[in-house]
């Protein structure tokens, strides 16, 4: 792609989009957002990056292989469900932690961990597909 504007803007755009995607992920419990949407936004950031900077640059930027990221995400999501077993609840019952210094936080929980897993799966899987398509030329 030979758009000078896009090429120049890409590094800023991508950084911001990734940041935004994490913001969307974390706010999801109370306002529109969540792991799935956040993941899609994150994936679109990497898609932009791949189109403008090439596959090798994306691979460097992601550090880990995208499929591994997706796999780790799935693992985290599964693990967050196991936690409840330790407390005697059924598999995937949400567990909450209300720290004494912030009793009204209502945020630290296995549910959020699960959402992070979803985010990683979506980012990893979609980026893997995009990179695969780019490379197959």
């Amino acid at each position: 792609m030979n758009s000078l504007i896009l090429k120049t803007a890409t590094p800023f755009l991508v950084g911001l989009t990734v940041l935004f995607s994490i913001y969307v992920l974390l706010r999801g419990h109370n306002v529109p957002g969540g792991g799935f949407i956040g993941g899609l936004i994150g994936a679109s950031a990497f898609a932009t990056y791949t189109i403008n900077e090439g596959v090798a640059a994306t691979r460097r930027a992601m550090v880990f292989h995208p499929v591994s990221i997706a796999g780790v995400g799935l693992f985290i999501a599964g693990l967050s469900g196991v936690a409840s077993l330790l407390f005697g609840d059924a598999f995937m019952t949400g567990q909450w932690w209300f720290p004494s210094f912030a009793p009204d936080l209502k945020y630290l929980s296995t549910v959020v961990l699960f959402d992070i897993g979803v985010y990683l799966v979506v980012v990893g899987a979609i980026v893997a597909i995009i990179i695969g398509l780019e490379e197959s030329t």
Partner: protein
Amino acid sequence: MLLAGVLAPFVLAVFAPTVKRVAGPATGWLLALLPAALTVYFAQFIGTVSSGGTITFSTPWVSDLSIHLSFYVDGLSLLFALLISGIGTFIVLYAATYLAKHADLGRFLMFILMFMGSMLGLVLADNVVTLFVFWELTSITSFLLIGFNHASPRSRRAALQALVVTGGGGLALLAGLLLMAQAGGSMELSTLLQSGDLLRDHPHYLAILILVLMGAFTKSAQAPFHFWLPNAMEAPTPVSAYLHSATMVKAGVYLLARVNPGLGGTEIWQTVLVAFGAVTFLIGAVLAIRNTDLKLMLAQTTVASLGLLVFLIGLGEEVALEAAMAYLFAHSLFKGALFMAAGSVDHGTGTREITRLSGLGKAMPITFAAAALAAVSMSGLPPFIGFIAKEWVYKATMGDFWPLAITGVAILGNALMFAVALLVGFKPFLGRQSETPKHPHEGGPGLWLGPVTLAALGLLAGLFNGLSGGLLVGPAVWAVAGEQVSVDLYLWGGFKTPLFLSLATIALGIVLLWRSRAISSTLAATFDRMWGPDRGYDQFLDLLIGTARTVTARLQTGTLRHYLLVTMLIVAAVLLLPVAQMGDLDITFRIPATDFYIFGIAALALAGGFSIAVFRSRLIAILSMGVLGVAVALVFLLFSAPDLAFTQLMVETLSVVILALVIARLPIYRSDWRGWPRAVRDSIIAGAVGVGFTLLLLSITSRTLDLALSEYFAARSYTEAYGRNIVNVILVDFRALDTFGEIAVVVIAGVAVLSLLAMGGRSLAGAGRAPDSAPDSAPDSAVTGKETS
């Protein structure tokens, strides 16, 4: 304790290969200790059971479905358990000697022990599901054992055939058992079978009966399913001696005997069992005399004996059940002994062909003694238990159920069995010594201990008929009959009809024996080329596989376009058929009073849809689809579904990116022109789907929505899950398991796309790619890499 008894063989099975490596030649003796101990363990129940008591054990398994690991010892299960563990002891010994030089002996013993555990579980099970589980385990272990010589194609075929036939019957049995449990209101056989009238008068009685009989008949090789048993003789002889004479094939007979108090006694039960049993009895006996391979002859007589047992259970009178149990006991002893003796002959001489064997008595005196004793018991001569059993068979046939016909069948069958028994037991050992591949020699004690003991037991059981009748056969009859009847076995019944029938049988048997060679060759000439169920099985499998192949070729064309066409056709049918079926649609169509810009969004969506249909360039089509999707996202946004809108927008964006990459990077047609006929067809299908969805949505919005779920989640989202975004709370908390499944699919899809691309890369390497990178080229110029690649 009972549970431990059933599970012990499985535990030992795991260690069998290790024991073999460590213990070497002592393996058999060591491993045989367990079945020997089990025999003693079960023997201690004889006292309780023969005085009318039972022993039960139950531990919860799946309590919600009232499935328990429950076991139950009465006369019938005890007789079976003793035969399984007792004969099993000698089989383990025998196998360790017989296969001493085989590299996989450890594995073989493992399978044998697993089978032993399965069989014990089967006959002791009280819960119907427990029974079924062990029933299938015997099918699976039998498959492993028949296919033990897995390098031989014949062996593999026989193993698969046995699994298909008995496994298929097992499925029918499961349905039958569950229906029966439902009809009788209990999962426990011991309770279920006490309410026999409830079962017999139940509207599902016929279905239960047919399904249970399918299970029993396939397992016990009743005609027309008898073909798998002779084929199973591909297995090493210890397997034939254990599974295919004394134990597994009797599981079907066991089942019939077990359910007799519940399902038996009706006219259809009698007719079906007597008819199938009698036919099987004759087929088996005739095929036995036709064969010349020792093992095959024995296998066919086993088929015959199983037929006789089914026949006797079908007759159902007290004396018939006594005959069945006595014969079952006698048969296990003499058939196990004969099989092992035949194996020893094979082991010692290198052949099982009866025409090539004679005069081995000098070289193999112990085997001869065992074979002779067992054969005399089988032929039904006094004072063996086999004689008593046959006398009782004749007593049973003289009831009021077609007496003449079935007595005739019994005489003919028994005479054939008499001839075959003497052929197998004496022909190889008498006369002038023949030339054999190996120099005939007696094997070690492992080889002769089993046959000698079993054959001797057949004699002792006949002599001490008071003990065998009172302690083993009698209690078994009580269990089958469902009540305590007095059983009194004896050798000398006076000059009455059974004795004369026995004499007639012996006379006819001697004639058959004298002409056996001629009969065998006549039968071979007549029947060998005829169509039989064995060939039918092949034809059935060929038909099944052929059909599957044809259907698969039709459905799985490998063309994405075709798959989409079929999918959309089905979607259209699902949407429109209910409408057509129900006739009038309750639709009130109204244009909601909304802001004017909604019409702008609608126009955007229409423009997108229109240009998808009109433009031939695929890239433009994809972009237009994005436009359409964004319009839909806007609708979501305006009608207060921000989450959906958000997601839709991102999905549309990424779809366009990915599809554009596919178009730009992969060698496919850049243009999509399908010619008028196909264009018309595709538009009709697309139109149908569109109309269907429109009607569906209109009919949904025309009625009041059931908001119960929405209210439920709205009420609990914050109080129980501390989240105000209901959609997200449902996704990650209320329905987290669903989401977990979905993200697993996402990962799998990602991996699948990568591997497809990797494969495509390989096959495309030589094909080159589309030279033209311009997005919109003429229809025919970009065909280099066709869609097939």
